[in-house]
């Protein structure tokens, strides 16, 4: 037993080191925060305009591209001033309100903070509340899918084993980092990288269950002790990632800085659209697996009552093992999807883990479909809350919602009352 645990730790370390070893390229100190915008005058892009982004100890000037797009990567999150050099504007183009030249913006990791300069004489076309609402709603669904992919796995693992897995965030991170390794370091095809990375994580899910959790279950380790073990594992893996990958946020080689496609008032990038479609497909396959296949049905039986399932001839350990593989794979894709829009870093999984918990709890912990619904709701709440509260506090909103839900309906949307308390 002791030897197996040590073997696991070495194994995990080895696997991570192997997949990421060459990934330790010189870390560029980027925070993932950026500010961007598009200069458009009367439907036509405005190229070659100098824009300066500044804060204490930081100044950078860029020119808008032929498509009017400009973007500045920032060293850290915070408040920045954005100003436009009016002398570089082409003839005939003026700011609609010259006093609105020095704009301040709050930038954080994630989607770039956008700054709009309005051109023309006096007619300012502001985005209507409805348009903003729809855009944020679409962002919310996308982010909800990211959370759902991780949440379904978390919930399935909880349902079948009772383990509240605080190391689930590290599976999310691993998905993004292995993809980064194949895509950027080895320069392989992006789609092959994604598939390979999913495979890596599936293997890690399998191995993790076989050499850590299964022996612990067999030994009769309590659920609370296992919860603490998962926290320890999470801390350990997180700093292994930091050690190997470095502290920066890095983008994939492919589909970086893709242009948005306008669908009605909503602006989405093709990569996010396809990513979301694949996420939905994966979730559908999971649902089909749970409802229709023998093993899926068995896993629901184990969730309901492991002892009864075992005595009716279900191989509980095998079911749990498959659930771990599935959970790890889904979490990995969640990480890849997240990294496609905001870059990969060592703590990305941990930073959304609480939101995943919020989604899973909201839907009813231990129910796969509940986690799906709950996660989508959490994603949408987070994005829509930025209509009313500062974007830097949007995650606070979601966590407050989590606490309020526990007050009102602790079993969640789809959970059953007797499971709790």
């Amino acid at each position, binding site marked *: 037993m002791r030897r197996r645990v040590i073997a696991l730790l070495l194994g995990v370390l080895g696997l991570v080191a192997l997949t990421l070893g060459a990934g330790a390229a010189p870390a560029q100190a980027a925070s993932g925060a950026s500010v961007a915008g598009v200069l458009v005058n009367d439907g036509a892009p405005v190229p070659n305009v100098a824009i300066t982004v500044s804060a204490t100890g930081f100044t950078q000037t860029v020119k808008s591209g032929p498509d009017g797009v400009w973007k500045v990567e920032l060293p850290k999150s915070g408040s920045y001033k954005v100003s436009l050099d009016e002398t570089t504007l082409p003839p005939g183009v003026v700011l609609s309100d010259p006093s609105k030249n020095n704009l301040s913006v*709050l930038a954080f990791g994630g989607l770039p903070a956008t700054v709009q300069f309005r051109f023309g004489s006096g007619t300012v076309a502001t985005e209507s509340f409805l348009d903003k609402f729809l855009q944020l709603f679409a962002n919310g669904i996308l982010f909800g899918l990211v959370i759902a992919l991780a949440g379904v796995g978390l919930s399935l693992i909880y349902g079948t084993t009772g383990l509240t897995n605080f190391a689930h965030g590290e599976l999310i991170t691993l998905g993004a980092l292995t993809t980064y390794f194949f895509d950027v370091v080895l320069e392989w095809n992006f789609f092959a990288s994604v598939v390979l990375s999913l495979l890596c994580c599936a293997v890690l899910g399998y191995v993790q269950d076989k050499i850590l959790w299964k022996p612990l279950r067999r030994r009769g380790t309590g659920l*609370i002790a296992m919860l*603490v073990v998962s926290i320890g594992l999470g*801390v350990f893996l997180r700093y292994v990632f930091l*050690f190997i990958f470095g502290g920066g946020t890095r983008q994939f080689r492919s589909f970086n800085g893709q242009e948005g496609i306008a669908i009605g008032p909503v602006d989405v990038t093709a990569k996010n659209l396809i990513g979301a479609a694949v996420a939905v497909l994966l979730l559908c396959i999971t649902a089909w697996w749970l409802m229709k296949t023998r093993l899926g049905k068995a896993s629901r039986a184990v969730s309901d009552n492991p002892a009864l399932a075992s005595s009716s001839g279900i191989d509980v350990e095998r079911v749990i093992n498959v659930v771990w593989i599935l959970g790890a794979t889904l979490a990995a894709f969640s990480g890849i999807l997240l990294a496609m829009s905001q870059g990969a870093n060592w703590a990305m999984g941990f930073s959304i883990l609480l939101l995943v918990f919020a989604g899973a709890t909201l839907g009813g912990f231990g129910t796969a479909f509940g986690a799906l619904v709950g996660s989508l709701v959490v994603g949408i709440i987070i994005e829509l809350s930025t209509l009313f509260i500062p974007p830097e506090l949007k995650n606070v909103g979601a966590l407050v919602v989590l606490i309020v839900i526990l007050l009102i309906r602790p079993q969640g949307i789809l959970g059953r009352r007797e499971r*709790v308390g």
Partner: protein
Amino acid sequence: MDWGFILSQTLTQAIAPIAIVYCLAAIGLNVHFGYTGLLNFGQAAFLAMGAYGLAVSVTRFNLPWWLGIIVGLVLTVILALLLGIPTLRLRADYLAIVTIAAAEIVRLFARSVTFRETLGGSDGINGFSTSFFSSLNPFNRQQPYTFGPIHFANGDVLFMFLIGWALIAIASLVVWLAMRSPWGRVIKGIREDEDAVRSLGKNVYSYKMQALVFGGVLGCLGGFVFALANASVQPDNYASDLTYFAWLIMILGGAARVGGPILGAMIFWGLLTLVVETLKNATASAIIPESILRTDQVGQIQFMLVGLGLMLLMIFRPQGILGDKKELALDARR
């Protein structure tokens, strides 16, 4: 390799204010988890309440330091009540999720640009400790003090050291007295079997709430020491890492033992300093080549060891050094 320096650092850090902070945090956790069985993974939030309560009231509202301490204590009690009301009726792991979320909320608020005026943003708050030290500290505030291998950078650190250990002594005494009182027996009963205690007519919810507040206040004392010893508060000092360290210290020393957190904190900081300083020395003098480990990566090794330590302790020796496996029947509880 400068072994004299390394050993002197190890001894100093094992009893330094930083160890005191984590010791107080772990004493609070011990009341929560060791005695009551509450899974609090947001202990950092209670320390933050103390530290920010003191710093904000002194710098922003110009209150005297002792009023700042009272504000910190009141905030801690309020936070404990807020956390307890939704979660203490629910299954144990819900408290874990909610406390970890609450600690994150507190930190995000503290470092937000929106509340920069009051809470200081990511730079935190300085300059609140002067009135405390200048009115109380009997030692020379500039002069370093050295006792054998143990070194204090100045009189403030020495003073904080003495106050901190006095606080630990008082806190431990109070916990010891409380846990051998009838109240403590009910608390330990809740840990072992909540339903049994409930069937005896005790209001389990109320007892759990009292324990949550009690442990939170003990953690808040650690927050005061942290703020005063650093002479500043910084939001990222109150991240979940603090909570994990405190957990490791509690389990290492032995949960549900009065001496557990004290022994745990001293051994933990001593060992950690020994490892970190040895590695730093080895990398600086190129005994370990830079291709394997850079000096700036030593801190990451430290966290890996904490994670690994927490896992292995929980698997192989959940009762820690002082603990009694029979008393802390972790395995029997769901």
